[in-house]
């Protein structure tokens, strides 16, 4: 019986509380309702006091009026509170303090009225503070909720065991399941079996350190039955008092992954399709050259050999274009291992020496060293620098290839005594499609991709590339590579630096 009564009383108190000090309710009320409520209340209390004087206590004239002030402030805010404070002070004075129904303010009465008014003001200001605090909490809560629910990423909170404690509404957009369904189902069961181990390891790793965060990519069985690629950023917020769990922001990146794959496939097919006809043309040219030589038809043999040399240029260009496509798409891949750098340099130099009769390539290499990286790609850079040196020094006879070991770095420079590069060009030379003009605006052949590709390769292998040059007196192109760039994360992928010595 008492329990039921208490229950009803509590629910009534809650309702009153929600009705009175609710910030939203107060904002939607019309001003005249806000002001008329205290007047009615005041009139009602005065009526009760006048007619049930003894019952309500004559000795404490202000007591019920305090309740009127508190309720009016809760209902309508500070304005109605102030109004009712003044009004009730007047009413009290008129009916209860002074000889009945007159305004006769003596010393004692004025102190009583003043005290009452000051106390009321205190109540009003406290009530205002409560309202403001409520408003603040509500607004930041709403803001947080809106951010959470309108975020394009879904947000999920799990405990340390992986049980889902919270899932934001965007979950439905990302994986098809509503946040309710997601919380009820075994969310982990839909992760692709090949990705579970990796995810488990990531979780275990993150659990070791509060605050740590990591982004992973995994496959997930979506509600529509298809597999999607999900990118999740998982953060350990177990120590955070408001969250106490692991937070995952996840998004569906299937389309992006498929597009990337399509692009990679296209590059693969393009490489194959472009090189296939060139392969047979080149082989035919070489067979013809052999046959002409056997017959003693040297003039014809020379012609098809020139054809073959042109084909080599074409193959180089196809390679360059594909490399640029890969660099732009971020899919330039490296096959890395330890290799003998000097052996590679000697190989490249020997090969290029065959292509020129005008220049002598002189090798001045420091002691042998094993370098970790992509041998073929570094060979490509070296070949590019040497063939540029030959191309841009038509009047000179030698090209120097010098290497030096210093600390953990290997520096290789290719020096020519050619045209050199003007200061204005020096800054642009590693840019895509940039081509240097010779004297009298004579432009050298080429599509201007070689140095761009070289600089990208060197950068991605953790090194740097630069040029030192004096116009008319030759250029020196250098690159610097760490022996084992994986052990030197500090110098990984530095920006291209151009050093001047003029």
């Amino acid at each position, binding site marked *: 019986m008492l329990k039921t009564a208490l229950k009803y009383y509590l629910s009534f108190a809650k309702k009153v509380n929600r009705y009175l000090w609710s910030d939203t309710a107060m904002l939607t009320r019309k001003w005249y309702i806000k002001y008329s409520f205290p007047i009615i209340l005041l009139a009602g209390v005065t009526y009760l006091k006048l007619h049930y004087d003894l019952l309500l206590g004559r000795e404490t004239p202000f007591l019920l009026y305090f309740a009127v002030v508190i309720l009016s402030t809760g209902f309508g805010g500070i304005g109605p509170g102030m109004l009712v404070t003044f009004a009730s002070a007047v009413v009290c004075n008129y009916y209860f303090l002074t000889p009945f129904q007159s305004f006769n303010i003596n010393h004692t009465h004025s102190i009583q009225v003043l005290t009452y008014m000051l106390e009321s003001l205190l109540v009003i200001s406290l009530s205002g503070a409560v309202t403001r605090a409520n408003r603040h909490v509500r607004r930041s809560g709403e803001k947080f909720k809106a951010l959470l629910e309108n975020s394009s990423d879904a947000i999920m909170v799990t405990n340390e065991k992986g049980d889902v404690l919270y899932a934001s509404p965007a979950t439905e957009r990302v994986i098809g399941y509503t946040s309710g369904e997601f919380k009820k189902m075994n969310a982990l069961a839909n992760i692709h079996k090949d990705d579970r181990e990796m995810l488990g390891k990531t979780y275990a790793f993150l659990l070791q350190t509060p605050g740590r965060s990591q982004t992973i990519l995994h496959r997930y069985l979506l509600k529509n039955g298809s597999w999607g690629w999900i990118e999740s950023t998982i953060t350990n917020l177990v120590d955070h008092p408001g969250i106490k769990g692991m937070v995952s922001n996840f998004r569906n990146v299937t389309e992006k992954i498929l597009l990337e794959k399509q692009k990679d496939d296209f590059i*693969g097919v393009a*490489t*194959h399709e472009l*090189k*296939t*006809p*060139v*392969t*047979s043309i*080149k*082989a*035919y040219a*070489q*067979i013809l050259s*052999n*046959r002409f030589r056997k017959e003693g038809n040297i003039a014809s043999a020379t012609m098809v050999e020139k054809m073959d040399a042109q*084909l080599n240029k074409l*193959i180089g260009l196809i390679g360059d274009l594909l490399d640029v496509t890969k660099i732009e798409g971020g899919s330039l891949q490296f*096959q890395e291992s330890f290799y003998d750098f000097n052996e590679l340099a000697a190989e490249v130099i020997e090969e290029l020496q065959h292509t020129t009769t005008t220049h002598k390539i002189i090798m001045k290499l420091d002691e042998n060293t094993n370098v970790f990286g992509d041998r*073929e790609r570094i060979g490509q850079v070296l070949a590019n620098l040497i063939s540029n040196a030959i191309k841009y020094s038509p009047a000179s006879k030698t090209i120097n290839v010098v290497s030096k070991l210093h600390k953990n770095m290997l520096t290789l420079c290719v020096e020519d005594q050619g045209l050199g590069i003007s200061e204005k060009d020096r800054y642009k030379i590693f840019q895509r499609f940039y081509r240097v003009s010779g004297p009298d605006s004579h432009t050298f052949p080429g599509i201007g991709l070689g140095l761009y590709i070289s600089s990208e390769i060197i950068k991605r292998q953790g090194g740097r590339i630069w040029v030192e040059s004096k116009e008319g007196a030759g250029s020196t192109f250098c690159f610097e590579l760490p022996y084992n760039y994986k052990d030197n994360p500090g110098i990984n992928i530095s920006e291209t630096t151009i050093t001047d010595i003029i």
Partner: protein
Amino acid sequence: MKTILVADDDEAIVEVMRILLEDDGYNVITTMDGKDVKALCVKKPDMIFLDIWMSGIDGKAICIDIKKDPVTSQIPIVMFSANRDTEEISLECGADDFILKPFEIKDLLALAHKYAR
């Protein structure tokens, strides 16, 4: 006379390989269908030039198939392809060597000489 089996799905390449190898004194068998490679092994070629990227079945699978069969596993296989991962694939499938397209005929003939003699 040594016999070389050439498998490639590009007609021009098959043709030029035939001329090239016959000029150098080999007996040449060719196929453009990957599925025939294993069957052609009954002709006991002394070596195989095998394209990686072929229609029907890819060269890597053919290579693994031949290398795991004790009857054919002794036949040297040289993978040839235009792709940069040729070396990796050759190692994975147990091929004896590889050459990248486009090739210099002297390099190709050197491989034929090395494995078919």
